[in-house]
């Protein structure tokens, strides 16, 4: 005889949702993967990470999603993101309407110029590609962006967790320089808010 399951005792755990979008080649998928791992392995939470692509592998639209929770995650994709990281104007145009009011918006101002209804969101800017370029390689842009992201979600993700996840995902000989890139992103964000 199956016991009637009391819905009040089975609460759906609160979800924190992050969406990253841009063009292929901008590190959209990598950023999502690093965040997902940081939360799940190093922060001890539950997280799902999924991605979708346009048909072209470079230059086509690309989206990555991370859902974080202390409890079980059922639907693995983003429903209404708390954070949107938009690395291209097209990504912003497509995904801004879904962002929760008062939600966090992180953009790269070199490619994202036009933000409708800016007062509805908490907007932060990081010229990740430019900073990475000055450091020597556009490959470091992910670490820069993550550095800028960290202070915005620091209450649910420790810096050390994020650094460790980045170190896991880059070639061992580039860990040091990626940590520097992370620092630059962090500095840039803190300078703006400080």
């Amino acid at each position, binding site marked *: *005889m199956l016991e*009637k*399951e009391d*819905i009040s005792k089975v609460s759906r755990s609160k979800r924190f949702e992050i969406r990253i979008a841009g063009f292929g080649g901008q590190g959209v998928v990598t950023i999502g993967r690093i965040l*997902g*791992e940081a939360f*799940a392995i190093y922060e001890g939470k539950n997280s799902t990470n999924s991605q*979708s692509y346009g048909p072209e592998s470079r230059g086509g639209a690309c989206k990555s999603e991370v859902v974080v929770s202390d409890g079980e995650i*059922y639907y*693995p994709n983003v429903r209404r993101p708390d954070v949107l990281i938009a690395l291209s104007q097209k990504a912003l145009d497509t995904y801004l309407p879904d962002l929760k009011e008062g939600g966090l918006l992180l953009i790269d101002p070199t490619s994202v110029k036009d933000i409708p209804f800016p007062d509805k969101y908490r907007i932060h800017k990081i010229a990740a590609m430019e900073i990475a370029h000055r450091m020597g390689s556009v490959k470091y842009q992910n670490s820069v962006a993550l550095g800028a992201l960290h202070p915005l979600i620091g209450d649910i993700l420790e810096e050390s967790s994020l650094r460790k996840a980045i170190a896991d995902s880059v070639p061992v000989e580039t860990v040091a320089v990626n940590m520097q890139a992370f620092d630059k992103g962090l500095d840039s964000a803190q300078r703006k808010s400080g």
Partner: protein
Amino acid sequence: MSKGPQERHLLKPGRYYLQGSEACVEGALMAGCRVFAGYPITPASEAMEHAARRFPQVGGRFIQMEDEIGSASVLIGASWGGAKAMTATSSPGFSLMQEAISIGIISETPMVIVDIQRPGPGQGYITASQEDVMQARWGHHGEGSIIALAPASVQEMFDLTIQAFNLSEKWRTPVLVMAEEPVAHLRELLRVGARADIGIINRSKPQDLGIQPDDYLPWGHDVVAPMANWGEGYSVNFVGLVHKEDGNVTDWSSEVNCNCTKRLLSKIEGNAREIAQIETRFVEGSRNFVISYGSVSRTAIEAVMEAREQNGIDLGYVRLKTLWPFPEENLRAAITSADTIFIPEMNFGMMRHPIVEALGDRCRNFVSIPSLGILHSPELILSKIVEVT
């Protein structure tokens, strides 16, 4: 095959953040699989690439074959050569493998095939789909039956792949793992337990039962015949024609034909109660149900909980963990009477058919909720539920 120092390269107990495809391959290795043959196809290539890297680390062998037909044929040879073997493919490749699956069924060959489904027909597309679920049961030519599992998470891509090998060895049959792109490409936590706690089943051998080569019947002795492999001194002759218990293919009669294939059918269908599994939540006292499987279940449970919490709808959730043999008895035990049964699928209504066959006398309203090429959103399922109830 060596069981030596390489074994230490299996996943140690702990938490991992893996893609479903990777978890599937890790589960296979944990289950003792040591041969992988495959052919690149989106969205299954990640499983293959992970296997290429991992199999030699554990002392196994990986080969990229010239096509899917070759890959499936390798599984036959490897299994009769004594190894646990697998491949991973997607829908068009799955079509090509049907002849090998068919001969695997009649020869009662343990082998595991992972189908990461994509939309069809034809080249279709490369996104999410559940359009092969009928092909899984009926795609091989001829009678006989098969086992097909439907994982719904990265954890299940690991656990159910281990279960697939166990079922394959226990029942001496090809077993299918019917995955989809969402669960194959999803990354989430995988918890791996201690090796000793993971139950592994190996095929029963005549040597262990004291059956001498002269007395051995390759397809006899029991409901599931003990399997002597090549190289063990039993002079086994693998065959694909209908046969008697001793393998004789010449004394054909309708009775011999019938006995041979009936045995294949009843071996699986007759043991459905033991083999098939479902998961249920909130079924007690509910008048309406959502029956789903695979990735879609992740959306379904989210929608069910929201419907119950926010819309106050009396809704039960049933998930088919096994697609075939169809869990008819389990379903009937869970659902004794219903007003409406919702069936969300990433196809126009395929598992709907055995569901209606199983519950048609207990429910008059079956509502399919299709979503082609993309995973259902909770809103899609919810809106249909709200509309109908």
